Structures are given as structure tokens and as C-alpha cells.
């Protein structure tokens, strides 16, 4: 266990490093860089206040982006978990179906993006579909892996106690798979974001992708970076959401750390 003085030292060190990077970017952006390609952090912040916030269309685009990510992610969780449970249920179903999942996952999906746009059109549906097709695989794979790695000893113990097949699944296999499920959910989140934003950048008639291209093609880096910063914040917020859910829902992570130390000492 790290002492509190050491962890606060780590915090300050981290802060100093981040401040140093910002200062370096500021100096480089202000005195050395070509303003057509780069803007110092202060310029980006000014652009955020002056060019992004007052523009209702951009705010609307960002809001739509959040909705698309949420929809794609929701579908990924629902479909990914269910498929994972079905595929991972028995070693037979796993050996029958898991190779299909692995094969589909191996396809570089970007190459299918034009097809997705063709199918789902230029609107949000294509972004949701592409985000979903990215997010669903990590979830399936981790649910299957979590169910497969259940300890033989736990299964044998449950059987010796007279557990039925469904009781074993409910009280042994599923709880065992929870940490792995959350690994899948975190990876799935990252992939969903990637999918939605890729689709946005590829074709968009008024979404975040449209404005990104607009600013980039006009050599206007300050609002471009401000917009990218907004996407980064959205990504961080979604990831935090998953992390909080993980902390609350993983059995065994619920207990207090203080109690652990008390007993182990």
C-alpha cells in the first residue's frame, strides 16, 4: 500500500509534467510554429470560448456526437454481452462459434466504411452502426474469455455441493466473468468512440466531422484543436462513467480498503 505522502508526491509530479508540456507547447506555438498549422494552448482556449461555444450548430453537432456514441455503445453492451454469454456458455458453443467472432474481429473495418455509409446513409445511423461494429467485438471476446477462465476447482466445488447447471452459471461462472466483462466494456468504449468519430470524419453534413474538415481545410488550427479537445473530453467522461460502474458493480471491489489492511497486518 502506498503511503499518502508518496501518492501526493506522485500527484504533484504529474501536475508539474503536464504544466511543463503545456508551457512548451505555448512557447513553441507562439514564437516558432506556422500559425496555419498550429496554435498555442492559449489560442485554442480562446477559440473554444469565441468560436465554439457561441456557435449553436457546433454545440448541436457535439451533442449529436454524444448521442451517437451513447446509442452505439448501448447497442454494443446489449448485443455484445448477450452474444458473449451464448457463445461462452459451454465449451461446445465456444468451439462452434468463437472462431466466427475472431474472424470478424480480424477484418480491418475501416475498409468497410464506404459500404456502411452506402447502407445507412449520411446521417447518424451510419455513425451508430460503425461505432457499434467496433464496440461489440471487445465485449464479446472478453465475456467469452471471462467465462472460459473460470477455475476448475470452483466448478468442482459447486458440483460437489449439489449445484445445478443454472445455479453454477449464476453463482460461479457469471460472477467470475464480471471483471473480464468490464475490461471488455472499457475497450468497447474506446472502440465505439473510434468507430463513431471515424465515420464522422469520413462523411458528415453538419456533424463534428464536417466542422473538423472545415477548420482543417481553411488552415484554422485553433478552433480545430478546440473541437478535438471537446471530443477528448467526451471520451474521458464516457470512460470515467464505465470506470465508476466497474467500481460499484464488481463484487469484491465493494468492500472498504481499510478493513483489508486491518486484517492483513
Amino acid at each position, binding site marked *: 500500500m502506498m503511503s499518502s505522502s508518496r501518492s501526493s508526491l506522485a500527484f504533484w509530479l504529474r501536475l508539474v509534467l503536464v504544466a511543463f508540456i503545456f508551457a512548451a507547447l505555448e512557447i513553441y506555438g507562439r514564437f516558432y510554429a506556422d500559425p496555419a498549422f498550429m496554435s498555442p494552448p492559449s489560442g485554442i482556449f480562446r477559440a473554444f470560448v469565441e468560436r465554439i461555444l457561441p456557435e449553436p450548430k457546433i454545440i448541436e453537432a457535439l451533442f449529436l456526437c454524444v448521442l451517437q456514441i451513447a446509442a452505439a455503445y448501448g447497442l454494443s453492451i446489449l448485443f455484445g454481452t448477450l452474444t458473449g454469454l451464448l457463445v461462452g456458455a459451454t465449451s461446445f458453443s465456444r468451439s462452434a462459434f468463437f472462431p466466427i467472432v475472431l474472424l470478424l474481429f480480424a477484418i480491418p473495418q475501416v475498409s468497410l466504411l464506404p459500404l456502411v455509409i452506402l447502407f445507412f446513409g449520411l446521417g447518424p445511423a451510419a455513425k451508430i452502426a460503425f461505432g457499434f461494429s467496433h464496440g461489440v467485438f471487445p465485449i464479446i471476446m472478453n465475456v467469452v474469455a471471462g467465462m472460459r477462465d473460470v477455475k476448475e476447482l470452483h466448478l468442482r466445488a459447486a458440483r*460437489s*455441493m*449439489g449445484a445445478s447447471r443454472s445455479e453454477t452459471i449464476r453463482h460461479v461462472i457469471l460472477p467470475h466473468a464480471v471483471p473480464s466483462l468490464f475490461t471488455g466494456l472499457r475497450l468497447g468504449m474506446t472502440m465505439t468512440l473510434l468507430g463513431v468519430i471515424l465515420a464522422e470524419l469520413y462523411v458528415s453534413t453538419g456533424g463534428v466531422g464536417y466542422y473538423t474538415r472545415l477548420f482543417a481545410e481553411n488552415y484554422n488550427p485553433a478552433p480545430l484543436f478546440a473541437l478535438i479537445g471537446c471530443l477528448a473530453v467526451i471520451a474521458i467522461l464516457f470512460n470515467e462513467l464505465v470506470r465508476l460502474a466497474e467500481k460499484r458493480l464488481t463484487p*469484491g471491489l465493494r468492500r472498504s480498503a481499510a478493513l483489508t489492511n486491518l486484517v492483513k497486518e
Partner: protein
Amino acid sequence: MSESAISIRNVSQRYGDAGAPDSVLALDDISLEVRKGEFVCLLGPSGCGKSTLLNVIGGLFKPTSGTCHVAGRLVDGSPHPDKIAFVFQESTLFPWYSIIENFRIALKFQGIPQSEWDDRAMQALKAVGMSSFASHYPDQLSVGMRQRVNMARGICVETDILLMDEPFAALDEQTRMVLGEDLSQLLAATGKTIVFVTHSLAEAVFLSDRIVVMSARPGKIKTIIDVNEAHPRSPDFMLEPRFSELRNECYALLRDEIRSTMAAQRDPQSAGA
């Protein structure tokens, strides 16, 4: 002689199909009677089929041939949780459940009505001196504490027969000794029939009424040694000359077996299982 609780007749167990190159004969024609209330240790080199035999008795494995009766009932590859409880290594506690939840789930699996769960669990935890840790999670306890709880879980289901598969293997020697003493006392009070798998000579002599010494693969019964000493046993028993004599006798019997197992393990064809 009192009636027999477990009756094993001509049990053989083969992994893989006979004749296949990776097929292993784990048990070869084992016959054994265990009397009611008796504490029997299965002692042998690792890989001799001790655990396999235990799993056959507990109905977790179906023997390739032969029969096993427990309390007059044929056990044929399906567990009888109302008659038989298993205690495995301490890591068998489900880490996602707290201690009390681990007990509840064991009792639920066994089909005990819910109203009895907590009383029985607390009673068993009290018996091993762990009742104040009911709401802890297994990984918050030390290994020795976990095994205490795990033993209590096996006892709280109140079966006549307890099968213990190297329950103390992951413990350090001091903890082993203390838990062994506790076990001897606990069990003297309950009158359960116990089959205990171990490869610790001292443990076998200290705990058992009879020690079944098994030979290296294919597992056969080499000798059965009687330990005439009443339960519960005090640690003083370990200081008696008879204790060392018995232990040396076991060691002498096992030595050759251990050597031949080690020789066999160098040959990849016969390793495994």
C-alpha cells in the same frame, strides 16, 4: 466391527481410451471399506491417483470400472450433497462472495431451507473461531484463516461424510499443525466419517485412524497402516516414539514409490494427469 460408510469395490479409472498413447491408468483395481466415523488418510506420491479416488467416492468422476457405495447408495458419477461434503484447498472459497455469502451459497446449493442458512453458518464459523469475519471477503483474510473458513463451510452442511482433498497443501507448516489439531478436535465432536488426501507424512499419522498407502501410477493400495490412538489427539502425540515409528514406516513404504514416480516423470509419455 461397525458398519461400513464407504465401500469401494474393484474400482479402476482410466483417462483417455485404453490403448491410446496418451491414455493413463490412474487407479488399478482398488477395493477399500471405510467404517462409520473413521478417519482414513490416502497417502501417496503425487500423481498416484489419491485425488482421483476421492473424486470417485464423491461422485465427481464416474469410475471406468468397479463400484462405489456410500451409506448403501451407489455413487456413479453424480454427487450426493446430502451425504457427502468436499473440502478442497482454501482457494475454493468463491472470491466474489463474502464469507457469510460463501456459506449461504453452499447451503443453497445443498438445498437447505433459507431460514437455516445464517444460523448454521454462524455456528460453523464460531466453531473455528472466525465468526467476527463473516462479512469479510476471502482475499481480506490470511491463507490460514481462509482454510479455517473453508473447513467450516464443509462442516456446516452437516453431511455424514467429509472428503478432504489436500486441504492444507497451500499452508505453511506451523499453520498446518495448528489447523490439524483443530480439525482433530472438531471432528471428534461430530463423529463424521472422513477421507483425507495428503502427501504429508506427519499429517497422515497425526490425523488418521488408518493410513492407506498408495503406490505410484497406476494407483494401487500398497499397505494399510493402523494408528491406534483415540481422538481428539493432542500435540503430545507427535512427541511419542510411536509417532516417529509410524511416520518412518510410511516414509519407507513411500520412498521407492516416489523414486519410481520421479523416474516416470522424466519420460514425457507417462507424465500428466
